């Protein structure tokens, strides 16, 4: 049996979902870390410098291509699997067992994924497109010009509907991760009775904490709240 047969099989397709999913989780972690600058002192300069590093570092730019590929693979494979799986029961049940035997978010990964995708498109239009193709104001620190991405955040999050949309995105992400992380572990076959509970608990904590930090960003910027978490800065 060769590798192309592996990835064409039902388990192989799940492995693709799990691998790309874990890769995207690493991206979330980095993204969250960089953006957390907005919570610390001197947010404008620190965030803009960090964003500048992320936008100009060669290694990160190359990784960005991999990130886009990871997203596309995860999305396309996810939809293909959903369609295939839906086709396996032509006559539906008249009565559903509902939430008695499984969690609603475990059954709704495609729906949650679609909400995240819609959020992602809006999010890219808000920040990624202007930072790549122009449309941002510029600021100067120590005689060097930077994109004022922080100013863009303030402008975008001034609109209430955008904040609501981002919160929907964060909630969807949280439910998606709550199923996704433990599901990926199961797909890789990690089921040891000692470390599986650790994976499940750490995964659940990640699924709640990371989207919560993301959700705080539009809220804080919209209401002009400063968490000012002290002099510690996450500078690049």
């Amino acid at each position, binding site marked *: *049996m060769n*590798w192309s*047969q*592996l990835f064409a*099989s*039902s*388990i*192989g*397709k*799940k*492995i693709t979902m799990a691998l790309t999913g874990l890769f995207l989780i690493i991206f979330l972690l980095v993204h969250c870390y960089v953006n957390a600058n907005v919570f610390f002192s001197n947010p404008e300069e620190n965030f803009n410098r960090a964003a500048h590093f992320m936008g100009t570092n060669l290694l990160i730019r190359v990784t960005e291509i991999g990130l886009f590929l990871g997203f596309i693979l995860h999305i396309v494979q996810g939809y293909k*699997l959903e369609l*295939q*799986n*839906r*086709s*396996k*029961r*032509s*006559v*539906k*049940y*008249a*009565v*559903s*067992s*509902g939430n*008695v*035997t*499984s*969690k609603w978010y*475990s*059954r709704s*990964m495609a729906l949650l994924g679609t909400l995240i995708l819609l959020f992602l498109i809006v999010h890219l239009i808000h920040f990624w497109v202007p930072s790549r193709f122009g449309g941002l104001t510029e600021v100067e620190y120590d005689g060097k010009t930077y994109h004022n991405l922080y100013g863009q955040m303030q402008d975008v999050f001034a609109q209430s509907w955008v904040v609501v949309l981002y919160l929907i995105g964060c909630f969807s992400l949280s439910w998606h991760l709550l*199923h996704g992380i*433990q*599901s990926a572990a*199961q*797909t*890789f*076959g*990690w*089921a040891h*009775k000692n470390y599986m509970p650790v994976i499940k608990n750490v995964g659940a904590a990640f699924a709640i904490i990371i989207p919560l930090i993301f959700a705080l960003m539009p809220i804080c910027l919209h209401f002009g709240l400063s968490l000012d978490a002290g002099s510690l800065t996450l500078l690049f």
Partner: protein
Amino acid sequence: MQHYTMNLTLKVWRQRNNKDAGRFESYPVNNISSEMSFLEMIDVLNEKLITDGGDPIAFDHDCREGICGMCSMVINGRPHGPWEETTTCQLHMRAFKDGDMITIEPFRANAFPVVKDLAVNRGAFDRIIQSGGFISVNTGNAVDGNSLPIDKDMADEAFAAAACIGCGACVAACKNASAMLFLSAKVSHLSLLPQGKPEKKQRVVNMIAQMDKEGFGSCTNTYACEAECPKGISVVNIARLNREYLGASLSGD
């Protein structure tokens, strides 16, 4: 528990054959004892249907002891009904109360075509077993059992997996009509034991290939299968199946 009798309305899926579209029909059943099994309750209805010159409801059953895996049925949306770790034949009418309406459907999956009414063809499971769910034993004398030491924990785990009766409730419960819990039980109970080790790799590869060919969906880890399994097969077996499949694929020929 106090004995009582009840009057019920059954909404039963009737389908003449595999080509028929099928529809629900309602039947009142009266004076049902709380001590009857669910299948006995249907026997009572069928006797009445036959006496009245009607067509009795077709359903699968054999041992009526909860060990053969023949009885099926989805009762109020639950394969084998509302009780945990119970087959339909061991479900008793005390699970219901007077005046209840009970919806009875066949196990629904394209891989389990309806034969008639509530009876479905689960031959796909037989073909999966034929593709690798066995050990090849050369003829000769049976060896002494004690010459092959087996770790107690392994033996227990293999035995727990071997409790699978192949009823197909996992497929019926799964939103994707996936057969992964069944397959994982069969793969686990053989590969955990020394007798199953020599064919471990080709077994898992061949059985998954057959499962995909039969038109079952893929596993999305909702674990509805584990919740509905009448024998309490654990989804830890699915993790083992995934692990073995990945291992066999990466290291196999």
